[in-house]
C-alpha cells in the first residue's frame, strides 16, 4: 500500500517517461533544458519569491480560455485593468479528465468558431512552447489552476513550459472533483507531481505548490479544510516541495474566517518541516453566488473586508458574474478592483475583533483530532492514514461527489452564522467538540423555532445566493405545496 516516502529518482524517471508518452506534446519536455529556461526568467516572474516576499495580500483571479492569443489578451487585461499581482491559467475540463483528444477537438472548434467551446486553457495541447509564449507575454508570475486528479502530464508540460506554481493535491483535487478516482491512486499521481516540483526546487527553481483549500466550496467546516491542507502539505514536503501555499475558502462569518486563517497558518508552521516556507491563500466565497451582479459585489466586498482583517498572503478573487458562468474579462477585472479598493482602505486599520482566539482554539482542537486520526489510521504514515481515514469516515468532506469519501458529514450554520457540523457520522472529533457544535446548532434551532434537520442545511446552501448568510425559514414562503 501507498506510503508517504520520497519517490526514488529511478521511479521518478520511469513514471516521467510513461506519462510523457500519453500525448505527443510530452515529447518536448526536457528537464535540464527546462531548468535553464526557468533560470532565464526575470525575478518578477519567480512565483514563490514574489509571493513570499510580499508585504500585503496579493490578488489573483481565476481565468482560462481555449486559445493562446485569447489567453494572453485575457491575462494582459487582468494584469493591466485588474492590477492582478499574480496571474492564473485555469485549465479546461477535458484536460482535467486526461481527455487530450477531446480537448484538441474543442481547441480546434474554438479556433474555427471563435466560441469558447472549452471552459479553460488546454495547456497540454498547447505544449511546452505554447506555455512559454504565455509566460513570456505577461509581466507577472502565472499559476496553473485546474482540478485534475491525475495531473502528471499537465505538471510535466507546464513546469517545462515555465509555470512556477501549481494548484491542487491528491485529496483536494479528487474528493470535490471526481466520482470514481481512488484516493490511493491520486496520491501516487501527486507524489509524482510533487516530486517533480521537488526536483526543480533542488535545482534552484522553487516551484510553489498550492493545495486547494475550499474543497467543495459549500459550507466546509474549517477543521476539515485545514486537516486536508496539512495532509497535502506533508505529502508535498516529503517529495521536496519547499514553497507551500495552504488554502481556505471564506465561509462568510468574519470571526470564523479570521480564526480559520490564523489556525491554518499556525498549524501549517507547526506540522510542516522547517525547511518549507508556508504561505496562506484566502478564496473569496466559493459557494453559490447571488444571480445579480450588484449583490455579488456585496459578497465580494465581505470577502475583501475579511481578507483585510485576516491578512493572508494571497486572495483569490471572484467576479460579479460568478453566478452566471465564466466571467467576461471586464467583470473579472472588476472583481479584482473592488477587492483591491476594500482591502487597501481597510488594511492599515487596526481592527481587533473579540472571540477570534476562542474560535481559533475550537478549530485547532478539532483539526488536531482529525490529524491524530489520520496518523492512527496509517500507523504513523500520513499517506496510508488519509486513505484509510476517508474510508472509515474518520475524515470526510461535506457534499463530496467522490466514492472515496463517505460524504456523510453535513454542515449547518449556527445562530451567529458560523459553520458547524450538523451530522458528524464517523468524523474523528472529540465528544467535547461534538457537544459544542450541537449546542450552537440547538441555539439556532431554538431561535428559529424548528428542529435541526436537513432543511436547515438546504436553506444554508441557498442562503447567500438568496441574499442572507443564514438560511432562516421565511415567514411567508413554505417549502410545502
Amino acid at each position, binding site marked *: 500500500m501507498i506510503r508517504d516516502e520520497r519517490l526514488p529518482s529511478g521511479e521518478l524517471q520511469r513514471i516521467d517517461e510513461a506519462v510523457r508518452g500519453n500525448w505527443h506534446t510530452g515529447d518536448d519536455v526536457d528537464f535540464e533544458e527546462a531548468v535553464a529556461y526557468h533560470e532565464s526568467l526575470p525575478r518578477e516572474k519567480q512565483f514563490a519569491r514574489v509571493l513570499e516576499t510580499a508585504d500585503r495580500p496579493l490578488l489573483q483571479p481565476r481565468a482560462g480560455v481555449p486559445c493562446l492569443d485569447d489567453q494572453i489578451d485575457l491575462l494582459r487585461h487582468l494584469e493591466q485593468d485588474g492590477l492582478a499581482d499574480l496571474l492564473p491559467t485555469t485549465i479546461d*475540463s477535458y484536460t482535467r479528465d486526461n481527455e487530450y483528444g477531446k480537448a484538441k477537438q474543442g481547441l480546434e472548434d474554438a479556433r474555427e468558431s471563435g466560441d469558447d467551446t472549452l*471552459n479553460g486553457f488546454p495547456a497540454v495541447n498547447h505544449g511546452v512552447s505554447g506555455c512559454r509564449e504565455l509566460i513570456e507575454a505577461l509581466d507577472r508570475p502565472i499559476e496553473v489552476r485546474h482540478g485534475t486528479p491525475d495531473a502528471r502530464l499537465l505538471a510535466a508540460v507546464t513546469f517545462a513550459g515555465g509555470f512556477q506554481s501549481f494548484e491542487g493535491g491528491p485529496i483536494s483535487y479528487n474528493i470535490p472533483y471526481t466520482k*470514481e478516482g481512488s484516493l490511493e491512486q491520486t496520491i501516487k499521481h501527486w507524489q509524482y507531481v510533487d516530486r517533480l516540483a521537488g526536483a526543480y526546487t533542488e535545482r534552484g527553481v522553487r516551484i510553489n505548490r498550492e493545495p486547494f483549500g475550499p474543497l467543495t466550496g459549500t459550507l466546509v467546516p474549517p477543521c476539515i479544510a485545514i486537516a486536508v491542507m496539512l495532509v497535502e502539505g506533508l505529502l508535498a514536503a516529503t517529495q521536496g516541495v519547499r514553497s507551500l501555499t495552504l488554502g481556505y475558502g471564506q465561509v462568510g462569518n468574519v470571526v470564523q474566517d479570521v480564526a480559520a486563517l490564523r489556525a491554518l497558518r499556525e498549524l501549517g508552521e507547526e506540522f510542516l518541516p522547517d525547511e518549507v516556507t508556508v504561505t496562506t491563500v484566502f478564496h473569496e466565497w466559493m459557494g453559490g453566488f447571488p*444571480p445579480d451582479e450588484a449583490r455579488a459585489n456585496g459578497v465580494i466586498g465581505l470577502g475583501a473586508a475579511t481578507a483585510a482583517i485576516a491578512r493572508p498572503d494571497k486572495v483569490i478573487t471572484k467576479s460579479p458574474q460568478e453566478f452566471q*458562468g*465564466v466571467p467576461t474579462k471586464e467583470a473579472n477585472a472588476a472583481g479584482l478592483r473592488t477587492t483591491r479598493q476594500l482591502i487597501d482602505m481597510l488594511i492599515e486599520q487596526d481592527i481587533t475583533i473579540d472571540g477570534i482566539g476562542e474560535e481559533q482554539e475550537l478549530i485547532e482542537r478539532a483539526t488536531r483530532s482529525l490529524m491524530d486520526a489520520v496518523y492512527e489510521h496509517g500507523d504513523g504514515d500520513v499517506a496510508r492514514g488519509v486513505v484509510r481515514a476517508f474510508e472509515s469516515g474518520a475524515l470526510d468532506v461535506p457534499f463530496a*461527489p467522490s466514492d472515496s469519501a463517505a460524504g456523510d458529514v453535513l454542515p449547518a450554520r449556527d445562530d451567529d452564522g458560523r459553520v458547524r457540523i450538523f451530522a458528524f457520522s464517523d468524523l474523528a472529533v472529540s465528544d467535547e467538540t461534538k457537544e459544542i457544535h450541537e449546542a450552537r446548532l440547538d441555539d439556532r434551532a431554538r431561535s428559529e423555532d424548528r428542529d435541526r434537520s436537513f432543511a436547515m442545511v*438546504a436553506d444554508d446552501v441557498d442562503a447567500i445566493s438568496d441574499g442572507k448568510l443564514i438560511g432562516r425559514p421565511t415567514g411567508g414562503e413554505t*417549502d410545502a*405545496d
Partner: protein
Amino acid sequence: MAQTVILGVIGSDAHVVGITILEQTMEAAGFDVVNLGVQSSQQEFASAAAEHDAEAVLVSSLYGHAEQDCQGFHETLRDAGTDAVTYIGGNLAVGQNDFEATRERFRRLGFDRVFDSETDPQEAIAALRQDLGHRNAETKERVSA
C-alpha cells in the same frame, strides 16, 4: 404508485450540490428518485431509465460543457427503449450567454424542458406534475380507447 425519476450530472461534471438539493426536494414531494450522482455517462442515464421504467430523466450540468455532453443523448435513450420525459437544467453554456438562445439549443437537442440555474426545485416539481400527469392521462385514454 410513486413516479420514478432518474437524476444525475452528465459528462465529467462534478458539481453535486444542485442534484443533492433536487434529490431531497423531489423525494420530499413523493417521487422515487434514482440519483446517479455526478459524472454520469449517457449510457448510465439510459440504462437506469430502462431498468427502473422511469417516467422522467433529469439531467444536470453546471460546468459549461452540456452541449457537447448531450449530443445524441435522446438517441441513446431511445435505443435503451425508454421514452421518458427529459429535462435539463443548470449552467448550460460557457460564459455569459443569453438564456433564451441556450434554451432553444437544448430544445432542439430533444429536451422537453430546459431550466436555468435560477430554477427553484419546486418549479421542476410543478413541471413534472404537469407533464407526468398529462402522460398518465394519455396512457389512460389509450387504454380506454
